[in-house]
């Protein structure tokens, strides 16, 4: 889940200054993975001590080129669907768009409030009550204090958890927990919505209503970026497509053409 930082403000006295857009210009991002072989000081000291500084990078650091020179421009009404294999850079791209990762080259500019739903259970405290967790999420998302009540009511209504919200979250069944996470995640009002997979709840009785809530959120957002493995869903929801392969745009165009290109590749 992500919200744009409070500054800079995108409206003046409540008047929208211009139409929502999201522009990505020649964005590249590579990062080192340190977990390979231990993220420890010993290695640094040893390699320093053995005069291994020159070869160190090749030896110790595993560099991943996550996104390579990617550009696109989205305007109001655009629904971009991203397809690609696991590890093709979909989530990384969403994190760049959300302002969590800073690209090394190129830049992202956006007009409008951005929210990303990447991990629906972010900052959930199992020992706190449902209401406390709702408050935590509202504060994390930067919901103004006078709107906390409304946020809590919305989450309560969507999750349909009723009095259970006064109980510690660790007492919830997995279905109830899923409903709480779902409600917390979608009780937002972004102009630009970034989705890492469509959120759904498997609970039989709840799934139809969850679907309706989700569609309402998507319909309300002016721009949508949806990364998914569900090709039917992408075809139904999106009008533009991006096929990512190894961090590069292998194809960009209409969603139908992108899906055709994706299916054609082995």
């Amino acid at each position, binding site marked *: *889940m*992500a*919200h*744009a*930082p*409070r*500054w800079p403000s995108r409206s003046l006295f409540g008047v929208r200054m211009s139409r929502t857009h999201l522009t990505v210009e020649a964005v590249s991002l590579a*990062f*080192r*993975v*340190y977990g390979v072989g*231990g*993220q*420890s*000081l*010993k290695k*640094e000291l040893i390699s320093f001590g053995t005069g291994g500084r020159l070869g160190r990078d090749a030896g110790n650091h595993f560099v991943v080129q996550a996104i390579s020179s990617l550009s696109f421009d989205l305007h109001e009404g655009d629904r971009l669907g991203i397809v690609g294999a696991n590890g093709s850079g979909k989530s990384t791209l969403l*994190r760049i768009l*959300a*302002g*969590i*990762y*800073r690209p090394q080259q190129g830049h992202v500019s956006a007009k409008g409030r951005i929210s*990303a739903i*990447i*991990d629906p*259970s*972010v*900052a959930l*405290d199992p*020992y*706190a009550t449902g209401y*406390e967790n709702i*408050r*935590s999420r509202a*504060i*994390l*998302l*930067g919901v103004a*204090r006078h709107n906390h009540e409304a946020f809590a009511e919305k989450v309560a209504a969507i999750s349909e958890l009723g009095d259970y919200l006064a109980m510690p979250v660790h007492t919830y069944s997995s279905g109830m927990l899923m409903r709480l996470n779902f409600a917390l995640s979608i009780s937002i009002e972004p102009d630009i919505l970034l989705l890492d997979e469509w959120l759904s709840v498997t609970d039989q009785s709840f799934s139809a209503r969850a679907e309706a809530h989700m569609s309402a959120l998507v319909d309300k957002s002016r721009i949508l970026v949806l990364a998914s493995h569900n090709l039917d869903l992408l075809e139904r929801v999106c009008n533009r497509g991006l096929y990512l392969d190894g961090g590069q745009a292998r194809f960009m165009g209409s969603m139908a053409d992108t899906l055709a290109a994706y299916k054609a590749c082995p």
Partner: protein
Amino acid sequence: MPSVATSLFSALMHWPVWLWFGRQDIRSRYRGSLLGPLWLVLNLGILVATLSLIYATVFDLPLDVYMPHVTTGFLAWWFIAGAMTDSCTAFTTNAQIIRNLPLPLGIHVLRVLTRNGLLMAHNFIVYLIVAIAFGIWPNFNTLLVLPGLLLVFSLLFTMGLLLAIVCARFRDVPHIVTSIVQVVMFITPIMFLKDMLARKAILAEANPFYHMIEAIRAPLLGHAPEMLTWGFLVSANLVSAFVAAWLMRRAGHRVPYLV
């Protein structure tokens, strides 16, 4: 370094986040416990009472000198030690937030300071009891605790940022910090008095933790901290802020991949 300054300022402006989560940390730590954070007060009370009993005798000091000294020393030290060790894990334990929300990194260190500041506020009860028992009444010097706390807080903030970044990258550093903190407790005048070092006072004066403790302890005992302490804290703040800003600029944006 405009971007770093903006990021730190933005962290401060997110006060609802760090104040709330700092409070939540204490709430979840003592959830279900009858006394809650008062356990800490009890811990400090027992520690101070037994230490005073033994060491006032060992050092041959009157109880009304030794007990207030130990109480205020531990009050300050627990805060400093807690803030430092917790700062090491400020980013790693909040990886989920860092990887999902574009919030300024400083909020996680401010959360650590809030949590440890609240614990210190609870421990303040022990100080009040000891102060009343030994007749330490507030005077003009007591007010100096405010600038003292401010300087210690801001120093711990920049040191905390530094530690949090370094510890996210080098996972051995939290262990190093833990061992240092353990040793520092014994070599800093907390359980003994600086005067006992006699002509080797330099052993305390060269110790940065002595000055951090003294800026809180001296005013609470009704004395003004020495000029050396103020001078040290101001310059340490400048150096630490500069190094933290440099490291934030260099490595801050990499933290989301590291945690």
